């Protein structure tokens, strides 16, 4: 396994007084697609948000390229190259597609045109709709805007919270294909998913969480093939 780019190590914490995470870990290397699955309430989203500095951690560390970044705010983490795509409310509804992408590159200096071009190349349907208000788009198109927005700063690490939630099968397949493509381009990707089977199919590695702890770990293929994993967590 190549050197990990982002590491969450033995995290314990949650919202307010409740510790949702009970000492769980996950890592991803550059170019790796890592998937986190598990039942509802297992702490998948919380783990992802903890990697983005959104959760109060009582124990554990988050490391980026070997450096301890635990406790740094989201603004700083974005500056250091982490991109985050939330599950709900992932676009600015009253802003146009183009303006949404522009917000993604708010802190970028210099020539933005190339950034726009590469995002529109990755998501061609958006180019045609660039002046339309993001709130008027379908769920799948909004997801593309959300991902494109996060990619505007060419992050080293991309965190995606249930990107295919509520999407039609066609869109799901397309989103997963895009995720794989972005990973091949060199970004470390950590993906939380409810649609576990489809997600693990494109994953290099995966983690299965339960009640805030790691239960299973392995390559995507291995987890898919494991009968115990299938029975407990993949919903048959």
């Amino acid at each position, binding site marked *: 396994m190549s050197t990990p780019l982002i590491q969450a190590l033995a995290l314990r914490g949650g919202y307010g007084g409740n510790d949702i995470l009970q000492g769980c870990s996950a890592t991803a290397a550059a170019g790796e697609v890592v998937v986190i699955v598990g039942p509802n309430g297992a702490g998948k989203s919380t783990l992802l948000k903890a990697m983005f500095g959104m959760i109060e951690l009582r124990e554990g560390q988050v490391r980026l390229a070997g450096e301890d970044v635990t406790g740094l705010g989201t603004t700083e983490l974005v500056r250091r190259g982490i991109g985050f795509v939330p599950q709900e409310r992932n676009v*600015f509804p009253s802003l146009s597609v183009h303006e949404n992408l522009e917000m993604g590159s708010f802190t970028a200096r210099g020539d933005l045109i190339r950034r726009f071009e590469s995002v529109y190349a990755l998501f061609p349907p958006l180019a045609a709709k660039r002046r339309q208000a993001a709130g008027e788009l379908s769920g799948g198109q909004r997801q593309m805007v959300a991902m494109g927005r996060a990619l505007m700063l060419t992050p080293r690490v991309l965190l995606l919270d249930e990107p295919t939630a509520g999407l039609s099968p066609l869109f799901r397949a397309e989103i997963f294909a895009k995720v794989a493509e972005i990973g091949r381009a060199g970004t470390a990707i950590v993906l939380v998913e409810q649609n576990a089977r489809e997600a693990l199919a494109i994953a290099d590695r995966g983690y299965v969480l339960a009640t805030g702890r790691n239960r299973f770990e392995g390559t995507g293929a291995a987890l898919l093939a494991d009968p115990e994993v299938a029975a407990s967590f993949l919903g048959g």
Partner: protein
Amino acid sequence: MDVLGFVNLYVIPGLVLGSIYAVGAIGVSLLFGILRFAHFAHGDLGTLGGFLALTAVWVLGLQAIEALPLAMAGAAGIAILLDRLFYKPFRKAPSIVLVMASFGVALILRSAIQLIWGAESVSYQSGIQRPIWILDTFRIAPRHLWILGGVAAIVVAVHVFLAHTRLGKAMRAMSDDPALARACGIDTEAVIRFTWAIGAALAAAAGVFAGMDVHIHPSTGWDMMLPVFGAAILGGIGRPYGAIAGGLLMGLIEELATAPLFFGASLLPPAYKSGVAFAVLVAVLLVRPTGIFRGKLF
């Protein structure tokens, strides 16, 4: 009365009044949309602007309209200070605490104004102005022309800012979703400071225009609060363009409701003019709280 008389006596003054409300309402709408609370000290920031302009008129010998940018800048700076002292500690608190704090700030501002400038009404200039005739049919006082022009210029500037500058778009983004804005790496505290500056500058402009229209008095701003808030809610909270429409409508409704249109009688006794805003406000909140342009609901 004939149509022309109607326009000259009621529609034009209604539009002038409405444009003053509009400038105040844009500020309220922006602040409400981004900071998510009803800023009760907005009116008194307007009063402050009016008195700052007055000082510029006295000390520098400027015309009121020339003193406008100075008043706006001064109010902007003071608002950033007020945010630092009184609102920043409550960023994560329920909005009602902020409303309460702003209520206190309103009184602090007003007492400071009374301390510095006294409690009397003051005019920017003395003397009677002769009305100007446009196209030989429409009659308008020169100061009203300046007010309409000033408001139009400000509205255009606000539009350009919101639609075409990075900071303006960031403000719109924060108004939509502050958490997502933070996830983009936007420095939300900086955007908030700018929001205060712009909101206060707009309030100050409304105060100066109100002062130009009649006179400036320590309660000028507070007295405008109901119509300004009503206009912002009527247009839709967080919708700056809606605030403009809401303001103009509010001004027209106030003038027309108390105009003797029905054979010498009016819909409402003129003495109850300031109650019109409240009636409109309650009607909007009960019938369509998101306003004409479907703004936010809190």
